[in-house]
């Protein structure tokens, strides 16, 4: 007998199967499939710290290319200098992001002035270039309240200058100190791996500017890419792994003192 209860019961059961196979169809995707193809690209960066001499040409090039006001201290990329003494002390600095290169042996201690370490007291010293890690799970994207910062399909994290409200939550969320406020646009600003250049088939400004090949950019999805090959074959490290961000800037020759 068909009761109301029975009808609803069988109705739900009968509808469940055909509905389960249903799929939402995007008309545009059906008509122009080429526009919806996901690029087979994931941009990653490789820094060989053993080749870096701290000249700062990468920082200069970046500031010019990306119109980050030249005389300000903020910068999309920077170089850090580490000096380890024989008695186990660690000193580090990055004055003006090393825009002018490390031309002085004095270590910059900010408000504490500067400090001289005699050459004979130095155990080892090295330079570490830094930039946005274009994390696989970027905390900055997670915390943006308006979705103004987002990850592109190529894995690069960008900021929409027309939508950012300037709350600084993303700046707080980044464990690498990669973000800051642009003094002209008054919105969050960061390294984009020179996305505008990559789109045209060019390399980033800092990679082009480095005279020693310490900076490299590549597509990790391409097994023939020289950068991919190094990442696969060599012993590499990333920065601040413990935050669970899966950073995509890989380092060769890094030391445990690097922050």
């Amino acid at each position, binding site marked *: 007998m068909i009761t109301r209860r029975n009808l609803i019961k069988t109705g739900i059961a009968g509808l469940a199967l055909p509905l389960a196979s249903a799929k939402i169809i995007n008309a545009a995707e059906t008509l122009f499939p080429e526009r919806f193809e996901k690029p087979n690209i994931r941009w990653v960066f490789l820094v060989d710290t053993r080749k870096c001499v701290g000249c700062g040409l990468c920082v200069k090039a970046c500031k010019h290319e990306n119109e980050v006001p030249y005389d300000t201290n903020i910068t999309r990329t920077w170089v850090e200098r580490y000096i380890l003494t024989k008695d186990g002390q660690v000193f580090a600095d990055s004055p003006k992001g090393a825009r002018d290169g490390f031309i002085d042996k004095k270590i910059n201690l*900010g408000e504490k002035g500067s400090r001289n370490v005699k050459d004979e007291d130095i155990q080892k010293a090295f330079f570490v270039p830094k930039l946005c890690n274009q994390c696989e799970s970027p905390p900055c994207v997670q915390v943006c309240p308006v979705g103004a910062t987002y990850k592109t399909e190529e894995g690069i994290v960008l900021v929409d200058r027309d939508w950012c409200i300037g709350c600084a939550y993303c700046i707080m969320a980044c464990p690498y100190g990669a973000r800051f406020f642009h003094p002209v646009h008054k919105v969050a600003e960061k390294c984009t791996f020179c996305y505008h250049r990559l789109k045209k088939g060019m390399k980033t400004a800092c990679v082009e500017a480095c005279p020693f090949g310490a900076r490299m950019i590549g597509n990790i999805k391409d097994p023939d890419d020289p950068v991919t090959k190094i990442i696969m074959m060599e012993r590499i490290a990333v920065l601040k792994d413990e935050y669970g961000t899966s950073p995509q800037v890989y380092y060769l020759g890094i030391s445990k003192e690097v922050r």
Partner: protein
Amino acid sequence: MTPLEVHGEVWTLKELFTYPNEYIYWTLQIVMYPFMTGLVAGAFVLSSLYHVFGIKQLKDMARFALVFSFALLPVAPMPLLFHLQQPLRNHHVFMTPHFTSAIAAFGLVFATYGALVAYEIWFVYREHLVKTALSLRNKADKTMSEKIQYAINNLLTFGAYDISEEAIKRDEKAVKILAGIGIPIACFLHGYAGFIFGSVKANALWMTPLMPVIFIMSAVVSGVALCMLTYIVTMELRKIFAARKKSARSYLSPDEIKSAEINEIRLTSKYLILFMIFAISLELLDLIFRGYTAVKSWDILRSVIYGKDFVNIFIMQYLVGNLLPFAMFLLPGLTIRRTVIGTLLVLFGVFMMRWNVVIGGQSFSLTFAGYMHYVLPVIPHNIETYKEGVLGGLTVMATPYVLFWMLNKIFPIFISEGSH
């Protein structure tokens, strides 16, 4: 041409090894934000003690706290607007909320809470609104101010003129339900402010699941303290007016006011002590746990907590802001004067707690090898140093009192006829 000013550079002094882009980005206004929302939530919880749990002695205080909570409400987002680099884009939070962000929920939580408090006030004051409107309606020659008063009261009744005993009973029930729903929402409003900080994994000082709970407890402490203080101030003013003339509104003599006042205060102070114990216990638990587990960040945290910020944390917050008022409220024979000093110290203590979280959390570098010192701008030299300086903070602090004064014109806090 003067060099471009980088946001944060004016008030940040950097020491030892810090990253080039690091500054103190969250300043005084972000200290004000949890402080103000804490007051909102705390005042509401206090009013609910009467409405929900039927603590009859708190009747006077409850009505007061409710209206005060409503006056504080619009002030809670004010510090955020002062802080945003693009304040005119604030509506983006409502238009495109990005729900993986703790801040994105702000619009929803805040609007829900605001609506709830507005409803509750309406039910509490409906009888008064109707009576005022009806008495003015029948008056023959109204003055201009009476005309305005009539228009406002008449509008706010929304046509619900029924004040039979049955209708009033229903109102009371509605108030009780709303206040009941309101407690978890008030706690959520503030707990969520704590979540904004507690979930920042990049910040070693902020990241703890205790943060929301600590924030709720200190919120209630500050809300109750401010209600007590403002209550005393208004009662003292009424005493002065009552002594000077037979005020039309007040039917009580100065002595009657005085005895009512101290009774309310003594009872409320017991709740204040209770919530203070919760707040302090949680904060100490957090501190002990960090020291005991001593993870990678502990070295720099220890140098900040026991070194650079020692005076701010242990002297200003714990000693002056917690221990001292705690002893003052516990000693027998609580007087009005002692209460005033005690509540002021409690408010100061909670403010310092917010300060030590927000500013303290940024006083060490992400490198764990350097420090940043915050220099609070006192005399502004541009819009930014006004907004994020002493004057901006004072603007935010003063606004609820202006609103409270205006709200009191419509919803008089002290009406002697039997309302809820």
